[in-house]
C-alpha cells in the first residue's frame, strides 16, 4: 500500500514538473542579456546557458568542438577563418539559422559603436573586419591582423538572429530567458528548437527550466542547498566544503585545481613613493626569489585550503594540461635555500632581524583585500615564514577600491597578495599581464621600454607566440616565459585553489570540470530527479 502511494506521488511530481527544474544561485543580477555586451559573471552564466556558438570549448577535455559550425579552418596566419555551418538549425522563435546570422553577429561584434567587450579579443589591428556568406552554409571571416587562438575566441560569441534584430530572447542555445525578476531570479526555459539530440535521438536539453536565484550571501546559499531548495552551489570555499562534506558527503565535488592563482608581487614602479633602499630590495631578483623560496606553500595548501589547492610553480595551473611547463616545480620552502639567496643578494642576519648591505632592517608591508579570510590566514602564515629570516612583515587589509587605487594609480604600496581569477587557457589571454607595456603588468605597469632584459625577452616571446599559428612553437615560447617568470619571480605564485562545488545527488550526468562553469558546463545533458520524458 505504502509503495503504491509513493509511486503515485512520484508520478504526480513528474507530471507537475518538479523534477525537471535545476536551481542554483547567481551572486548578482545579470547586467545585460545582450550576449555581446557581457562583462559580469552572472550575465556570462546566462549567456553560456542560452547562447549558441560556432565553436565550443569542451570544459572537460579542454578541446575545441564544433557546435553550430561542423568544421572550421584558420588560414592566412590567423587572419581568416572559414566555417561550415550546421544545417536544419532553428532559433528559439522558430526562424532558421543561416550564414546571414553569422555575418550579422560579426558586424555587431566588431561595431565600434556597440563597444562589445567580447569583441575586444578580436581587435587585433586597425581596419575593418570582413564577414561574408560563401554559399548557403559557409561563412568566411577575415580580420585586419592575425588574431591569437582565433578559433578558441569563438567560444564566447553567441550568434544573434539577423531576422529578429535586437531581440535578446531569440537564441540558439539549450535555454531561453523566460522570466526575470530583478533581485529575485532569472528563469530560463527549455528552448523547444534546440538542435542537439542525445545518442538515443532524444531532444536536448533534458531539463524543462533552470531557475537562477539572485543570492549574494554565501551562507544563505549553503543553507538553502542543505534544505534542498537549490541543486547546485557552483563555487564553495574550503571551509564551506568541509562543513558540507561532514553533513552531506555525497553532495560535495572537488574538481581538482582550477586555473585561478593566489599570488604575491612587489612594487617595482620606478616613481613609486617608496624609500630608495626598499625599491632596490624589490627590484632585486634574488631578494624576490628568496622570499618565494621562503614561503611554505605546502602549509598554505594544508592549513588555509584544507588540502583543496595545489602549490603553484608559475602562471599556468596544472589544470591547464597543454600549456603547463611541467619542468617547473614549486619552491620547496627550504629555510637554508632561501637564506642562501638572501645572502647572495647582500642581506645578513643580525640578532632577530635581517639587514641589507647598508644596515636597513628588512621590514615591509603586504596589503590584501579586507574580509577575505583565506587571504588573512595566508598572510598570517607568510608573516611567520618570513619571521624565520628576521623579516618583519606588516599585514594590512584594505577595502577593495583602496587596494586597487594603490596598486594601479598611486602605486603607494610595497607588496600585495591577490587572487587572479579565471585566466584563459591560451597564453594570448595573458598578454595584458606579461607585456611590459601592458596596464596589467602589475609589478610595473605601462613601461615605455622594458625595464629589464628579461622583461624584454618575455615581450619578444609573447609577441612571437601571439603571431604564430604553430601550436608547438607557441608552446615552446610560452614554456620559456614560464621559466623566466619562475627564475625572476616578478609575481610569486603561491597556490592554485581547487574548484569546489556542491551538487545535489538528484542531479544526474554531472561531469565536474576545472574550467568555469565547472558543474553546469554540460547543462543540456543534466537531469534532475531522473524522470526523463521522451522528446523526439
Amino acid at each position, binding site marked *: 500500500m505504502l509503495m503504491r502511494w509513493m509511486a503515485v506521488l512520484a508520478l504526480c511530481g513528474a507530471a507537475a514538473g518538479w523534477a525537471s527544474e535545476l536551481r542554483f544561485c547567481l551572486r548578482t543580477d545579470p547586467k545585460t542579456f545582450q550576449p555581446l555586451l557581457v562583462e559580469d559573471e552572472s550575465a556570462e552564466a546566462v549567456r553560456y546557458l542560452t547562447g549558441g556558438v560556432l565553436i565550443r570549448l569542451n570544459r572537460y577535455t579542454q578541446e575545441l568542438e564544433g557546435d553550430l559550425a561542423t568544421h572550421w579552418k584558420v588560414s592566412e596566419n590567423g587572419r581568416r577563418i572559414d566555417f561550415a555551418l550546421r544545417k536544419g538549425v532553428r532559433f528559439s522563435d522558430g526562424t532558421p539559422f543561416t550564414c546571414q546570422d553569422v555575418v550579422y553577429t560579426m558586424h555587431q561584434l566588431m561595431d565600434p559603436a556597440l563597444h562589445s567587450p567580447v569583441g575586444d579579443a578580436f581587435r587585433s589591428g586597425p581596419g575593418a573586419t570582413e564577414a561574408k556568406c560563401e554559399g548557403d552554409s559557409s561563412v568566411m571571416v577575415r580580420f585586419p591582423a592575425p588574431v591569437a587562438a582565433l578559433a578558441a575566441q569563438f567560444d564566447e560569441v553567441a550568434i544573434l538572429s539577423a531576422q529578429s534584430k535586437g531581440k535578446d530572447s531569440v537564441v540558439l542555445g539549450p535555454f531561453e530567458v523566460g522570466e526575470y525578476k530583478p533581485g529575485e531570479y532569472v528563469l530560463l526555459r527549455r528552448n523547444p528548437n534546440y538542435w542537439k539530440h542525445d545518442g538515443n535521438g532524444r531532444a536536448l536539453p533534458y531539463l524543462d527550466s533552470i531557475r537562477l536565484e539572485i543570492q549574494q550571501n554565501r551562507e544563505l546559499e549553503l543553507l538553502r542547498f542543505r534544505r534542498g531548495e537549490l541543486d547546485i552551489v557552483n563555487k564553495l570555499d574550503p*571551509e564551506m566544503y568541509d*562543513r558540507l562534506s*561532514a553533513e552531506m558527503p555525497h553532495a560535495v565535488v572537488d574538481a581538482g585545481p582550477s586555473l585561478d592563482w593566489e599570488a604575491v608581487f612587489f612594487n617595482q614602479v620606478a616613481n613609486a613613493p617608496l624609500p630608495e633602499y626598499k625599491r632596490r630590495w624589490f627590484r632585486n631578483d634574488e631578494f624576490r626569489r628568496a622570499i618565494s623560496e621562503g614561503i611554505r606553500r605546502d*602549509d598554505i595548501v594544508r*592549513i588555509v585550503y584544507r588540502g583543496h589547492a595545489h602549490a603553484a610553480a608559475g602562471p599556468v595551473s596544472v589544470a591547464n594540461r597543454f600549456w603547463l611547463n611541467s619542468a617547473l616545480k614549486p619552491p620547496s620552502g627550504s629555510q637554508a635555500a632561501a637564506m642562501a639567496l638572501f645572502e647572495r643578494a647582500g642581506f645578513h642576519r643580525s640578532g632577530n632581524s635581517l639587514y641589507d648591505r647598508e644596515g636597513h632592517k628588512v*621590514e*615591509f*608591508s603586504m*596589503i590584501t583585500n*579586507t*574580509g577575505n579570510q583565506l587571504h*588573512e*590566514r595566508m*598572510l*598570517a*602564515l607568510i*608573516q*611567520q615564514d618570513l619571521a624565520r629570516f628576521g623579516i618583519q612583515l*606588516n*599585514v*594590512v*587589509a*584594505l*577595502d577593495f577600491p*583602496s587596494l586597487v*587605487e594603490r596598486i594601479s594609480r598611486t602605486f*603607494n*604600496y*610595497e607588496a600585495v597578495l591577490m587572487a587572479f581569477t579565471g585566466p584563459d587557457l591560451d597564453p594570448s589571454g595573458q598578454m595584458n599581464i606579461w607585456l611590459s607595456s601592458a596596464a596589467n603588468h602589475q609589478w610595473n605597469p605601462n613601461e615605455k621600454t622594458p625595464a629589464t632584459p628579461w622583461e624584454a625577452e618575455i615581450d619578444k616571446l609573447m609577441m612571437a607566440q601571439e603571431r604564430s599559428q604553430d601550436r608547438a612553437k607557441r608552446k615552446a615560447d610560452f614554456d620559456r616565459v614560464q621559466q623566466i617568470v619562475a627564475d625572476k619571480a616578478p609575481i610569486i605564485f603561491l597556490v592554485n585553489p581547487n574548484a569546489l562545488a556542491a551538487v545535489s545527488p538528484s542531479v544526474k550526468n554531472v561531469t565536474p570540470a576545472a574550467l568555469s562553469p565547472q558543474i553546469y558546463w554540460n547543462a543540456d545533458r543534466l537531469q534532475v530527479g531522473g524522470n526523463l520524458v521522451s522528446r523526439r
Partner: protein
Amino acid sequence: MSFQQKIALAVLAVIAAAALGAGWITPHSYAEQSREFISAPPSKDFWLGTDDLGRDRLARLLYGTRVSLLLAPAAALLSTVIAALIGGAAGYLGGRAERMVTTGIDLFLSLPWLFLLLAVRALLPLNTSPVMSVTITFLLLGCLGWAAPARIIRAGTMTLVNSDFLVQARAGGVSRGRLFWRHLLPNLRPIFLAQFWISIPLFILSEANLGLLGLGVSEPLPSWGALLRDLENYSAVLQNPWMLAPAVLLVAVVGCVQLLLGTEQSAGDRAVC
C-alpha cells in the same frame, strides 16, 4: 558591598591578573604557530586547544584580554567625557544651545561613519605596527562613540535642572558654579558611569566588526574582537565548545561590571537623597 559584588570584584581581579601574568600561565606566545597541531582540542600543552593556524587559544585569549581590557575602557572613558561635556552643557544651558546641540547630535548620528573609518584606514601609513593600529582604532571609536551617550546625558541633565531640589537651591541663592559642582554633577555620576560601562562591550564588539574592514587589530596581535570573529563558524563552535571561551570571558567581565555598577548607582542614589 554585597557578597555578589565581592565575588564580581574577585572575578575581575583574577581575569586582570591572568591577563597580566599570561607569560607565566602559558609558555606559548600569541603569535607562535604550531602548524602540526591546527584546530587541536584542549590538551596538556594547549589548555584551550589551538586555532586554525595552530596558535594557542589560551595565550591569544590572555594577551587579547590585555589589549581589550586596556583599550576598550580607555575608549569608553574618552567617549563618556566628550558626551558629558557636550550633553551636560546642552542640558544645563537649555534654550537655543540645547536645540543646537540636539540637532548636532542627530546629524552626527546620521552620518555614515563607516566611510570615514575606511578613509582613515586608507590614509594610515602601511607600516603601522599592530599595537599602533589597535590604539588608533580604539581612539577613533572613542571619538566617534559620544553622540548616543550625549543624548542620554542631556536628557538626564535637563531632568535634574528642572527638579525641585535644584529649583529650591536656585531660589535659595546658590551660585551657578556651586549649583553645578555640588548639586548637579554628583547626581549625574550614575548616568556617566552607566554610559561608561555600557560602552566597553560595545567598543569591544565594534572593534571585532571593524576587523572586517581592515581597521581592527592586525595580525598577529589578538583582541577579544578578533577572537570573537571565530564564532562566525557556528558548526565549528558546536564541535569545539572551548572556542566559546572569549565570549564567556566577555560575558563574565560585563556581568561583573554590571554588578559593581549597582554599587555605584546606589552610591549615586544616596547622593541625591
